[in-house]
Every structure is written in structure tokens, then in C-alpha cells.
């Protein structure tokens, strides 16, 4: 009987899935900043979640990451996913960070 190669414990699709999840959660982070800074109802809602808006915000961002990572891992993988992922991820991180900075710069200026 021939031995089969061992199945990796972290399949490739998990890398791709959670990579896209990081990008999605980063953009959601930026959108949530805009939402809560422009709408007191959102700020209060986040505070009601955990007692402070910052921890409520963080919890939602982390949940977004986990949920999307899990959801995106379901479709059958291709190795090609990770090949374009690096650029997509970097773009999302830079864009979301810039959006957050600009949001607070604009708020400070007004």
C-alpha cells in the first residue's frame, strides 16, 4: 500500500479566506469610524454593546474578520487566490488607514 502525502493542517484556502477577511474587516473598520463619528446613534449603539464605543467597535471588527474568514473558506480553493491577495490586502490596509486618518483630520478641522 503506498503512503499518501500528509494533508496539511492549514489548507491553502484558509490562507486566502482569512487574507480577504483581513481586507474586508479593515475596510469595515474605516466605514464604522465614519459612521460613528457622523452619527451619535451609532456611537451610542457601540457603547451599548460592551460599555464603551471603542471596545464595541473592536469587537465588531474582529467578528467581521472571523466570520468572513470562515465563510470564504467554504468555497473550494484555488492556489491562485493568494497570488493576487498580497496586493489586494496591502491596498485595503493602506486605504482603510488613510480613510480613518482623513476622517479625523476633517473632524479636527471643522
Amino acid at each position, binding site marked *: 500500500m503506498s503512503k499518501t502525502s500528509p494533508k496539511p493542517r492549514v489548507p491553502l484556502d484558509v490562507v486566502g479566506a482569512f487574507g480577504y477577511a483581513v481586507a474586508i474587516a479593515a475596510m469595515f473598520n474605516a466605514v464604522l469610524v465614519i459612521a460613528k463619528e457622523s452619527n451619535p446613534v451609532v456611537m451610542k449603539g457601540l457603547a451599548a454593546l460592551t460599555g464603551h464605543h471603542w471596545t464595541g467597535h473592536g469587537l465588531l*471588527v474582529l467578528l467581521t474578520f472571523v466570520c468572513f474568514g470562515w465563510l470564504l473558506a467554504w468555497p473550494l480553493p484555488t492556489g491562485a487566490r493568494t497570488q493576487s491577495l498580497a496586493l489586494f*490586502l496591502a491596498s485595503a490596509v493602506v486605504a*482603510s488607514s488613510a480613510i480613518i486618518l482623513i476622517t479625523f483630520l476633517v473632524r479636527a478641522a471643522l
Partner: protein
Amino acid sequence: MNAVSETILLAHATFGVLALLASVWVFVDTLNGSEQAMVRIRRASALVAALLWLTALFGGYWYLSWYGTDKALIKAGPWPFAHTVAMETKEHVFFTLLLLGSYLPIVARDFSRRARHTRGLLLTVSALIVLLGLAMEGAGAITALGAKLSLQA
């Protein structure tokens, strides 16, 4: 402010810098790509994640327990932007940094199993952690200076 709060704040900054250094380690060893580097990459990536979570726990606790006093001081002082821009940006961009740090070991584990096409991804994620980490340190320094200037005013 007391010795406990200052110690917790110092721990937050220290763990942050250590996480940044560990991410540099991951980046350089990924460039190296030798067999010996594989094990180090996995361990260093796990270290990055652990250190960033410690940074979050210490920083988050300090922020919720004691930052309110500093915030009022900074906003009333000569550098209100130290809170309204620097600290506000820092406390929200940090979530993205935490996600990257949590994701790094996942990529590292895949890379070390000779999935070489994740090399670019590992380099990208570790580099982003370093860049965001430096931004965090800078924003934290500006915030601290804002508080200091307020006390001197």
C-alpha cells in the same frame, strides 16, 4: 496617574515595539528562505501575534481606565490634535494591525510547509505590521507630548 497606570502604559509600548521587531525578523527570514529559517518564521510569527494581543490588552485596559483624564488635558492644551487626530487615528487603525498580526501565523504556517507562493504574502503582511507599528509608536509619542505640553502650559 500613578505608578501602576504608568507601568501598564510602558508595558503597552514595550510589547508593541517587540512585536514590531519580531515582524522585522519574520520579514528578513522570509527573504532568506532557508530550511532553518522555516521554523524560525513560524515561531516568530506566533510571537508577533502574541505580542500584539498583549499590546492590545495592556493598552486597552489603560485606555479604558485612565486615558479619560489625559484626553481632557490634551484637548484643553496647546496640542488638541494630539487627541483629536493622533490618538483617535491610533486607537482605530490599531484594530487593523491586530488583524494583520493574528493573520501572520496562518500565512507563516502555510509558507513553512513549502507553499512558496505565499512568500510574497508573508513579506507583505510582515512589512505592513512593521509600517503600521511604526505609525502607532509615532502617534503614541505625539499623544504623550500633547499631555506633557498641556501640563507645562
